[in-house]
């Protein structure tokens, strides 16, 4: 039996993230690179450590290899602990056979034994899909103050976007009166962030009951939380009012990266009191040459810049050759943009090669039909041949050659 732990976190990292297209072909969504040196999962993991939660179960399922490898023993996040620390929890074989995680609630249900080992009072449920810096400990204190069974982190979103979210209608004391899942006519702009604090004894009961209900899809949002509400459990919303972004689509991933370059956006990764930790690649400092022009950009170690870079995020070991242009783009580790090539309004995954004179993406101003505009995506290891063109909104995961060649 492990030492008693007041609060532990369970991080749901099994999602495929199918709306990220070829970027999640071989990796789970939480392993998708973000912000020049991070992966999405670095945010919830760093938040846990910074909040004083040092026991974290990471539930993986879809394409777990790279994610498992990335997390390793958790040392990068200071989560290699004698007591607690980070644990990868994959579905495992049981007497009645192997069962995949059927839904988010089922994933936690299958790991009740893991949680019980620590005998916690509270469990924080997180997902690996969002970019935000949050002190879960403050939320936990709020949960205790309210003597709640469940507390849901909530964010006020612009009314026009509200219909994309799971919404909450609140009473004056911030207790939850009603839930609305992606309604056409929203009556609230208070959206759930997918961050929950549960009193473990309560959640445990509901998970067991939910598992026995053959009609349940075993999902937190659809089944467990509505059931708790229906049974009259004490449920509260906790207001979060800083930067939070779902990076579930190509466009939102692109935007969330460029947000880092916008001084008006409230996501400061340089704050020494709330560092975002990551597994740092071993690379020398980056080099900006005599011929380079770099503005409004983020550049990471090992990169070499000889061309123009504007409004872009470059990961480690990227090369931009002389006369090449990279603008409004995200370029992941090891990619080479050769002489005279242009990468604009694009996401280029790891180790791709953009050959001389090739063009990836197009600016919205250049489009005759603005509806056809969108971010262009080049997959990992893809070679975009000399003079070839990758159109806006397209995703290429095999080599591209110039038309007619």
């Amino acid at each position, binding site marked *: 039996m492990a030492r008693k732990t007041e609060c532990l976190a369970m991080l749901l990292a099994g999602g495929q993230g199918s709306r990220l297209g070829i970027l999640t072909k071989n990796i789970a969504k939480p392993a998708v690179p973000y*912000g*020049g*040196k991070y992966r999405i999962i670095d945010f919830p993991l760093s938040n846990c450590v910074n909040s004083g939660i040092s026991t974290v179960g990471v539930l993986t399922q879809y394409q777990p290899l790279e994610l498992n490898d990335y997390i390793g023993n958790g*040392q*990068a996040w200071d989560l290699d602990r004698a007591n607690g620390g980070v644990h990868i929890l994959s579905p495992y074989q049981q007497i009645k056979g192997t069962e995949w995680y059927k839904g988010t609630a089922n994933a936690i249900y299958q790991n009740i034994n893991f949680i019980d080992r620590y005998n916690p009072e509270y469990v924080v449920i997180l997902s690996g899909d969002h970019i935000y810096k949050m002190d879960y400990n403050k939320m936990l204190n709020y949960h205790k103050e309210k003597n709640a069974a469940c507390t849901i982190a909530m964010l006020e979103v612009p009314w026009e976007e509200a219909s994309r979210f799971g919404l909450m209608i609140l009473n004056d004391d911030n207790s939850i009166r009603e839930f609305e899942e992606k309604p056409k006519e929203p009556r609230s702009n208070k959206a759930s962030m997918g961050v929950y604090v549960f009193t473990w004894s309560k959640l445990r009961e509901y998970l067991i009951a939910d598992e026995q209900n053959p009609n349940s899809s075993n999902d937190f949002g659809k089944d467990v939380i509505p059931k708790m509400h229906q049974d009259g459990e004490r449920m509260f919303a906790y207001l979060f009012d800083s930067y939070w972004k779902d990076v579930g689509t190509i466009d939102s991933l692109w935007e969330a990266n460029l947000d*880092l*370059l916008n001084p008006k956006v409230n996501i400061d*990764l*340089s704050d020494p009191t709330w*560092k*975002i*930790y*990551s597994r*740092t690649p*071993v*690379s*020398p*400092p*980056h*080099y*900006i*040459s*005599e011929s*380079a*022009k*770099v*503005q*409004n*950009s*983020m*550049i*990471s*170690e090992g990169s*070499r810049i000889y061309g123009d*870079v504007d409004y872009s*995020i*470059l*990961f480690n070991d990227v090369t931009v050759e002389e006369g090449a242009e990279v603008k409004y783009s995200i370029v992941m580790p090891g990619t080479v943009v050769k002489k005279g090539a242009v990468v604009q309004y694009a996401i280029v995954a790891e180790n791709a090669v953009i050959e001389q004179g090739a063009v990836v993406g197009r600016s919205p101003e250049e489009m005759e039909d603005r509806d056809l505009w969108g971010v262009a995506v080049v997959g990992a290891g893809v070679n975009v041949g000399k003079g070839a063109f990758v159109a806006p909104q397209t995703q290429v995961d095999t080599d591209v050659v110039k038309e007619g060649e």
Partner: protein
Amino acid sequence: MTGKNIVGIVFSNAYDECISELTEIRTMGSVPFASRYRLIDFTLSNMVNAGIEKVGVLTKSHYQSLMDHVGNGKPWDLSRKNEGLFILPPFSTNEVGENNDKLTSLKGVLGFISRSKEEYVLLTDCNSIANIDIEDLINTHIDNSADITIVYKNGKPPKLDNTLIFNIGYYGFVSEVKVGVPDVENANYSLNMILMRKSLLEKLVNEAINHNYTSFSRDIIQRNVGNLNIYGYEAKGYSATIESMESYFKVNMELLDIANSDDLFNKDRPIYTKVRDDMPAIYGISSNVKNSLVADGCIIDGTVENSILFRGVKVEKGAVVKNSIVMQDSMIAQNSSINYVITDKSVVITSNKALSGAENYQLYIGKETVI
């Protein structure tokens, strides 16, 4: 053979006095270098890249910053249950008072060396920077049945005490050794990376103790040229030895030549350092950077040319940094300019200041100074 059978010994204080400004508060080994490294990173990385699993770091004084940097050896994968990294402070205070020679230090750690189960010992300093394939070094040592193998470089030797200058004879063996402060333009000079059997080192040091010898260079190496087979192993690729503030500056600047950086930061034999978890560098709307090396955590809104910026440096709008080395967490505020300046860590140059050194004499600004 791999390095598994070698114990590494690093002299972290050797030649401290040649860059006394930088070593006033630290050891040679913990002197910041090349945007994100400390000098000891090169020798430690060379060792672990060859599979060496046990390293003793000898310290004499000012080793707080070194301890802070190397910690338990984790960044070099030297945090082990068996073997790993050992910091070896002076055995007694008497030792510190004695002469500065390596022989004195070796006498103090003879027990550590003797207790090691490895058959070979590799001795290194920190002021020579190179990416040496130590696996090749030991294979060459064995293939040539050498007693001692010393890594050397051909070029202008450093004007440092006890520098070893070699004549290399047939088959690459050392035929003559000069010791002292060299005054020649070109020679084969030692990079002070020395490999030999542990038993031989023990024997030589014990002899030295019995005879009251005092100089490692003269009494261990030079004295034995005729008796032992001393092989010269030429350092291939880029290497440099720091001998003064001017050369510290020059060697940093040499890395702006990407061919030198490529050699030193060889992708197959990476150089490891302590991780700081800074965000990537941010270039603002008015940034103008040319021919510079920049580390993570920098925020640049001004002009930077021919310079080396360490982690967390801020260059504000209108500030101009030219031909300078700016260490960790320093800030150059609005409309200030520096040229031929070396700032130590956490220096603040407030707005509208202009500081300038000269091409052959850089202005050094001490740690945490506010100007």
